């Protein structure tokens, strides 16, 4: 009996790593290591470097945008404010527009027009806290039919629920019926706006989305009492395009309103004096606070427009609100409306 050692796997042929493969693997690992080392350790200004020595590179950088100037040379430089009085809202708006040379002078066919009403609260239109929907409807129709604008957008960022405010104020329905398009704010609709010369909102979140490709802007504000700045008129209306924590602005309300006047240079500023909220503003809520002002103003100079509205719609004798003088100093217009105004009754 022969006892021979038996190798049960003597026939086994393994799949051995060749020297070439080993070399390849070392090269590959070395390459990955080198690339990793480069990315993590190369100085910051080297291409592809991911290094962030101070922690500042990783900070988000917002690139603010700037708004163009939407103003148009007036038909008659001597007339900066048109006032229409007498008749229904529709008639008064037409009269006011005629006074400054007609809408067609300001809107060219094919323009994309943004209309900014004041839809701040979920009040019914007859309480005077929001713009009269009848004027919005007329304006949108005039823009689309008479001036042949390509598109009319309506946008606001109200204090209360946007969908509700547009519904209850009747402005959403009026705008859409006339062929306008309503833009509601959402978190992705805001971008940082750079306003040179503004003291409080030099860089601030702004409701940008509806402004894309827009070449004319019309503000349309109701005339309202305001507890802190005395009156919420055409300039204060632009507040509704700001985002962010707006409630800090009450610490210096006149500065912010005059900043608003340089933030945006509108084509026209319309002040709706059909239902003037005389007191308990800007929220209102009581029909006894509302007066029929029987006027619609269309202004090229927003400061003069607000000055006339303050004296004649809110019927406040004496001094105008400070922010109008500050707006004048910032170059947005002139407080003195005398001789620069045309009233059509």
């Amino acid at each position, binding site marked *: 009996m022969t006892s021979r050692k038996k190798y049960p796997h003597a026939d086994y042929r393994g799949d051995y790593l060749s020297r070439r493969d080993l070399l390849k693997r070392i090269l590959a690992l070395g390459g990955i290591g080198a690339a990793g080392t480069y990315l993590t350790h190369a100085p910051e200004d080297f291409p592809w470097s991911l290094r962030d020595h101070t922690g500042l590179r990783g900070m988000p950088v917002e690139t603010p945008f700037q708004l163009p100037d939407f103003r148009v040379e007036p038909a008659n430089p001597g007339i900066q404010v048109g006032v229409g009085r007498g008749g229904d809202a529709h008639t008064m708006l037409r009269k006011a527009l005629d006074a400054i040379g007609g809408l067609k002078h300001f809107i060219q066919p094919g323009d994309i027009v943004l209309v900014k009403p004041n839809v701040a609260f979920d009040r*019914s239109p*007859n*309480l005077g806290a929001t713009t009269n929907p009848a004027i919005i409807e007329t304006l949108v129709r005039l823009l689309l039919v008479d001036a042949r604008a390509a598109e009319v957008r309506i946008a606001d960022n109200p204090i209360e629920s946007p969908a509700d405010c547009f*519904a*209850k104020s*009747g402005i*959403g*329905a009026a705008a859409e019926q006339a062929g306008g398009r309503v833009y509601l704010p959402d978190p992705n609709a805001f971008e940082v706006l750079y306003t040179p010369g503004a003291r409080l909102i030099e860089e601030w979140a702004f409701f940008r989305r509806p402004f894309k490709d827009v070449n004319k802007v019309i503000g349309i504000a109701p005339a309202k009492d305001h507890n802190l700045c005395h009156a919420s008129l055409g300039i204060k209306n632009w507040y509704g395009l700001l985002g962010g924590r707006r409630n800090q602005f009450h610490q210096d309300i006149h500065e912010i309103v005059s900043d608003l006047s340089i933030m945006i240079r509108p084509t026209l500023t319309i002040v709706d004096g059909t239902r003037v909220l005389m*007191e*308990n503003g800007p929220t209102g*809520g*009581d*029909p*006894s*606070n509302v007066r029929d002002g029987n006027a619609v103003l269309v202004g090229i100079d927003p400061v003069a427009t607000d000055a006339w509205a303050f004296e004649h719609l809110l*019927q*406040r*004798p*004496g*001094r105008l609100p*400070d922010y*109008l*003088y*500050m707006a*004048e*100093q910032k170059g947005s217009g002139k*407080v003195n409306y005398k001789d620069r105004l045309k009233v059509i009754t």
Partner: protein
Amino acid sequence: MRPDRIFNSHKTRLMRHQIPGSENLSVALIFVALIALVVWITTTRDNFDPTERDLPIELLGDNSAQIEIYNRPLKPWHEPGQPMAGAAFDLAPFPAATLDAEWQPVGRVKRFQPDNLYEKINGEAEKFIKQGFVGLAFLRLRSADDSSEIAIELFDQGSLGGSLGVFSDHAAGRAIEDREGVSFVTTGAGAIGRQGRYFFRIAGDRQSAAITAKAASLVAAFAQLGRGPGTTTTHEEIVPTGFALLSQRLGIAEADIQFQEGNVFQYDFAQRFWFAKAGIGADTRLFVHVADSAAAAEDLIAALTAEHRYEYDELEVDGAYRLFRHRYLGSFFAVARRRNYVYGVEASPDRAAIPTVLARISESLDDDES
């Protein structure tokens, strides 16, 4: 079926062999019923009107009218360590008659100087400073009866000329009344006026009989401005010679008299001129300037002549008297001197009428010589 698949890989196979017709029928019925349900629900929308979930305006009560809110008056600042208000309430420069039983001050009298005037009337400030503004005193009054308020701004313009200049800006085109030396115009809820070197604006916060009455009594009270005990204003400050000449000697209404502090005729050397309507053309004005001495008056006319030659043709020269005609507008400008008085006519369309006017001024100066 493979075990590493994520999703179900069983094939659904129908195992039974026959499906009864009754099942087919009921299934078809259920299909129809479900589709009908979907159609019914999606058409339930009843054309909702947003105002439906609002309150009809007729139902809204006039709460603001029914509920009386008492507004506590502004609590004025009191510097700790100073005696309390009351006796020490410093009303100056307002006359004591500013306050009465019904109208009491809200806060202190606030005073502003040229360097901080803009804090009060930002934007408007330049207008006042140009006219020699010295100080502003601001006071608010509140009625004990109905809590309406009146704001009074009292500008010290340094001289009658300054106050007159500011006043003529404000009063342009409105009927000017005169009461005990106070000239004023009545506005919707107050008054604007001047007395001596003071210019004032009174503005109520609403239109009411009480405010109108108080404004009138304030106007009357302001007759005492600058005349109280301890004031040191001289007669010259109250009524300057040039003004007296025009208004008293020539009898020109105060509203038609204007004063220009500097930069008269756009010349920086010409200062402190009085203007009034000459009664010739719409834009024609006569002017008077009181120089310090006859020699100074002579120098002024010489300087004026030299500058005028750039735009005017010199038509007549007779001693101190000069007559010019504008090269393009064709209007006439005349200037003359008597003692330290420089006077003349500007922008006259009519050459013949000028000597009459100048003679009138000259005559009025006669009395002075005696």
